[in-house]
């Protein structure tokens, strides 16, 4: 009985092998056409694939945006301005926000503690602000102002209770002015106020 099963298995295996060989021979015959024919088949297939590809880039809105606007559009910008410095590229992306932070950085020493404007100062209600980014976020601003320390007005004192939240509150050396706001935090009068700037806390 076991021998019979063994034989059956052997015959089955032989049949499978034979089928594979026949299949491979057929494939060899079909693929074994001359080189020019194979090249022609490839060129035709590549043309069809290329047509599908470019049609897909034209028709599908997402791919169209990704290829033509996102990739080619940005490459055009890069080719137009290949030699911009890092500062100029930063300004290109972040606009006035970056320019203001660069100004703060250049106008203050590295160990300065800056009283930094609040969100309300950057984006006053009903007034068009030149700031467009998340510049009022302390961590965001620190990327460009580090190692200077920042203290927000809300971190100084709460309701006159002298409870300091920020440990640098007592050591503020400069006050940042935006949209003409922040002068009230200085202990002296400014003769010619500016809209955006930075001033030492003591005259």
């Amino acid at each position, binding site marked *: 009985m076991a021998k019979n099963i063994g034989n059956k298995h052997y015959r089955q295996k032989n049949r499978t092998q034979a089928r594979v060989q026949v299949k491979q021979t057929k494939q060899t015959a079909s693929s074994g056409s001359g080189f020019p024919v194979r090249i022609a088949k490839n060129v035709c297939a590549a043309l069809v694939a*290329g047509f599908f*590809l470019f049609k897909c880039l034209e028709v599908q809105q997402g791919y169209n945006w990704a290829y033509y606007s996102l*990739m080619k559009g940005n490459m055009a910008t890069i080719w137009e301005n290949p030699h911009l410095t890092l500062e100029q590229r930063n300004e290109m992306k972040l606009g006035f926000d970056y320019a203001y932070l660069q100004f703060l950085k250049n106008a203050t020493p590295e160990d300065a503690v800056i009283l930094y404007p609040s969100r309300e100062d950057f984006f006053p209600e009903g007034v068009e602000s030149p700031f467009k980014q998340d510049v009022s976020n302390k961590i*965001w601003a620190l990327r460009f102002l*580090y190692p200077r320390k920042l203290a927000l007005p809300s971190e100084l004192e709460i309701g006159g209770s002298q409870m300091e939240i920020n440990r640098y509150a007592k050591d503020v050396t400069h006050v940042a002015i935006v949209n003409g706001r922040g002068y009230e935090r200085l202990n002296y009068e400014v003769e010619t106020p500016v809209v955006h700037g930075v001033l030492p806390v003591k005259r």
Partner: protein
Amino acid sequence: MLYFGLFLTIASGFVFVHCLSVKFTLIEKAGLSFPLGMAFTCFLMLLLDQVNIPLTLAPLLASQAFLLAGLCLFVYFCRKDAWVSLRESVSPSSLKDVNLVWLLFILMTVYVEYMNFSKCMYFPPSDRDSLSGFETIGYIASQEHTFKGLSIFDESYMPGIHGPASTITYAPLVQLCYAYVYTLGAETSKIVPALMYLFFLLAFYGAASRAAGKTGASVATFFVLLTPEMLGFSSLSMTNVIHAVFASLSVIYMSHWFKTGEKKDLLLCGALLGGNILCRTEGIVFTAAVLLLLFIDAFRSKRYRGFVQASLWALVPLVVWTLYRKMNGLYAESIAVTHPFWDAEKAGVIVSYMWGLYKNTLYYGWTFNVFLIAFLANLWFLIRKKDSLYLLLAIGLSSLFYILILYQVDYKWDTMHNVLSYSAKRFLFCFIPMIWYFSLTCHAVSALFRRMERFLLLRYFSRRTK
């Protein structure tokens, strides 16, 4: 020094994959080298920081050099056939079954990726989430030579740092990668996302071509690359695309393991899951889905060794990161509802938002449409032969876990609609490569591509079969 550091990173990733097995193809090894090298570098930085060694140039490069030397010694003593297999994989015969369709898609992929890489390197980090998080943390860490002791993690300087969803608890891989390149003298951190995406495309192509041939792999790689929203985010400094690299590749290698049963794929899947969890905390959804499937398989076959090894690779980084956070007070107010509850309205809103995303061809191109067609075409093989069943289960389970996480979040730092409108679309990046991989490697489609490859073969088929 930056190039030397990147060389050490890539080399250690490459040799690590070689340590797992010499049988991975050269493209797979090359593609995986940078993501895994960066994950190892991040892990080393955490350990150095924990023992108070400053994260300066010398300790960083020395620890990487030690790691590389150790991996090389392992290859020398334990992988005797390493050199032979490397020589075989770079021989010209590996290009024997290419055709013009393959060439067309490869050229298009190279062209689009060239533009993407240039764009990424040209524009400095500018997106809000990076500048108010990962990018700034990385930059300041490179200046202060520490991660746990960062001045911006000090509550007396940053009063809201322990508030809900604070950056202090963000998984550390991306921030530490940025700190690493800044320490090595990079002008911006953009080299990390740029290289990460470039190497990911190589790894995806390598993995896909092993499963479904070169032509299909080139087509799938091109469409993964061109996925509109993912392409846009790939050149930003955010974590989502980098997370997608680890998460998607880990699921893809899990699928390889279920198809071939080769242990190397299982171990690689575990290592990539480890990187995934160091990238974003929500990566736990992929770890949970994959480990659950591996456990079911191990339970059915009564062979637990591979499962335990993969679990160790996947979970050790999570344990180390959790301990590191506990020991150094890196905590924030919880944003999760930890008890089960039922809110039909909330669940309905989340499901409808997610459904809207799946249907959004502006964000994801034809990804989900192709998936649906491939799924229907393969239904017969799925039912009869369980073809790609585990891959589908992994995709389905991790999607379900994602929805559960969105449901369990207590939206007190931002509105649910904001999170679903602006963040949830990025969560789906992890699924894009998995879905293209399924669409390509399911029996119905891969058979079609193999038939096409035979039809377009430029060399005699008989030579190949000898």
